[in-house]
């Protein structure tokens, strides 16, 4: 059998995913079946060795640490306080509340970073406020979902950590590289909201005078409650950026800081700690075992010459290398319609990243493109997770269709942002370049 046929057969067997088989086991089964079929029983040893190799690295420790940090922050009232502290600054600006929601979302992404949690919280506090003030429904919904999804980009983003782990790219560099693209994307959202509200003031009325009338002292006092959690987040990222601590160490110190902050804020309890740990355990378990499954599959595919095959196929195309990258981005968008980011990452990155390198591109740049791409998958129908999260907490008269309808302008902005980074790689590569 030639590798082309094998590839097709393998894709065929992946139909197992469609019948609802857990991805971790479907991928693993196909991997084991092919290894057994082509190389016999003894070759299965390769799979277990590869799995062992993956577990036995220090960077992996960063995953539970960041998840734990995020989970504890998420369970404390930090996110809600963040929103309250930001929304009082909205003031007389048209679309001000939407802008402040977005600012709060950016900060939340850097502290809690759990996308589901952010969107649910904003859906509970920001959406009713905007609707009450007479904001345009689409604008309000879009702001929340798009803002909440920024968590896939803003460090410490678990997407970037996993990209770094599976492709052996420095996670610190990825965290640096994503800063400018992340700000660009947030900036595009800001510009969009402000422009629309400027052109049509009815879309986002300013706060009524009596609500704006909060003394400056009060406003700053609200900010005060955020000093601690923000300090922890900045400390963790700062020490990674400054090269003081390894990613895993910084994350561990972040866990300690988060627990301390929750304690000082009077929110720490055994119950909360236990729930955070359980959440971390389940999340780690599913991420890790999914990785094992994908490792088994990609491992045997590579042995059979599959990665080479696709690489030759794609580099042999009579196009400019950049077109190949664009093609990859399109494939990722399509996969993202149906699959979770982690599935897409584990299945495609081991194949795409070597091609990217052989084309002479920087894998850091590609990682940033990847996480921008996965933002789209959060918003895109039929399975945009962001829409599901919001639907769960939105007023009943807002249907899933309403939400998806509100999201497309933001998806366009995401594509614009991604294209900017695609055509101007320096936007991503400038900062990591400086630090070297």
């Amino acid at each position, binding site marked *: 059998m030639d590798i082309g046929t094998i590839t097709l057969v393998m894709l065929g067997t992946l139909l197992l995913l469609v019948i609802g*088989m857990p991805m*971790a086991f479907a991928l693993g089964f196909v991997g084991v079946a092919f290894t057994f079929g082509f190389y016999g029983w003894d070759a299965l040893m390769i799979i277990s060795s590869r799995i*062992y190799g993956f577990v036995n690295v220090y960077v992996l420790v960063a995953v*539970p640490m960041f998840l734990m940090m995020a989970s504890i922050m998420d369970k404390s009232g930090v996110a809600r306080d963040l929103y309250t502290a930001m929304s009082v600054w909205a003031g007389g600006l048209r679309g001000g509340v939407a802008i402040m929601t977005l600012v709060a979302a950016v900060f939340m992404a850097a502290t809690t970073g759990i996308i589901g949690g952010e969107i649910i919280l904003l859906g509970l506090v920001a959406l009713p406020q905007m609707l009450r003030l007479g904001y345009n429904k689409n604008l309000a919904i879009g702001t929340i979902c798009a803002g909440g999804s920024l968590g896939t980009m803003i460090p410490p983003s678990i997407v970037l950590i996993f990209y770094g782990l599976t492709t052996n790219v420095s996670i610190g560099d990825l965290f640096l590289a994503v800063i400018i693209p992340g700000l660009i994307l947030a900036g595009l959202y800001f510009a969009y909201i402000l422009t629309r509200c400027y052109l049509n003031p009815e879309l986002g009325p300013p706060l009524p005078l009596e609500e704006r009338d909060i003394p400056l002292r009060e406003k700053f006092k609200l900010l005060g409650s955020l000093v601690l959690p923000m300090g922890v987040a900045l400390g963790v990222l700062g020490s990674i950026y400054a090269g003081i601590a390894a990613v895993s160490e910084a994350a*561990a110190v972040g*866990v300690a800081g988060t627990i301390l902050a929750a304690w000082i804020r009077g929110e720490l309890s055994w119950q909360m700690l236990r729930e955070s740990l359980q959440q971390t355990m389940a999340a780690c378990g599913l991420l890790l075992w999914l990785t094992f499954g994908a490792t088994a599959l990609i491992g045997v595919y590579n042995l059979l010459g599959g990665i080479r095959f696709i690489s030759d196929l794609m580099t042999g195309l009579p196009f400019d290398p950049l077109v190949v990258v664009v093609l990859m981005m399109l494939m990722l968008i399509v996969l993202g319609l149906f699959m979770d980011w982690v599935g897409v990452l584990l299945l495609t990155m081991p194949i795409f990243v070597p091609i990217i390198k052989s084309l002479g591109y920087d894998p850091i740049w590609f990682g940033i493109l990847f996480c921008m791409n996965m933002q789209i998958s959060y918003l895109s129908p039929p399975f945009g997770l962001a829409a599901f999260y919001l639907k769960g907490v939105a007023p009943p008269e807002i249907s899933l269709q309403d939400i998806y309808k509100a999201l497309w302008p933001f998806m366009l902005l995401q594509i614009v942002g991604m294209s900017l980074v695609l055509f101007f790689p320096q936007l991503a590569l400038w900062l990591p370049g400086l630090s070297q």
Partner: protein
Amino acid sequence: MSEPPVIDRVSRILGDKLAWLFLVAAALSCYEVMMDWLFRAPTIWVHDSSIMLCSTAFLFGGAYALQRREHIRITVLYDYFSPWWQWVCDLVSLVLTLIYLLALAAFTGMQALDSIMRVESSGRAWDFPMPMVIRTALFLGAAMLVLQAASQLYYLIRNRTTH
């Protein structure tokens, strides 16, 4: 079913307890950072023990997540199937899952056994039999998943035949 299956309980309790290892690992890493920073005396054992603690914990996370039914699935079509077809899909998934996990448990088990026999050591600065521990945890994590999947398969078939 009046009470949750035994295996579910075991997976859950193991997961709940082992999750505390993450916290221990975090504490150890903090200790390391402190020693390195304040006393310029980095330890040689913290990195390796953090790896050991964390990987032991999340190797069991597989069964834990399966028990909580949190593993990622694509349910686009599945949701539209009739209950009978859903049952068939579940059956096929669980049987194939079991085959994969059994193969995995067999091989990680053999490697673990081999590692235990020679007390395989890491050969790093802190020469602890870390590979032995992790390989054993890998096997136990896989074995726990086998039991969890087998238990779900058993209940799937039993519930079908009793209704």
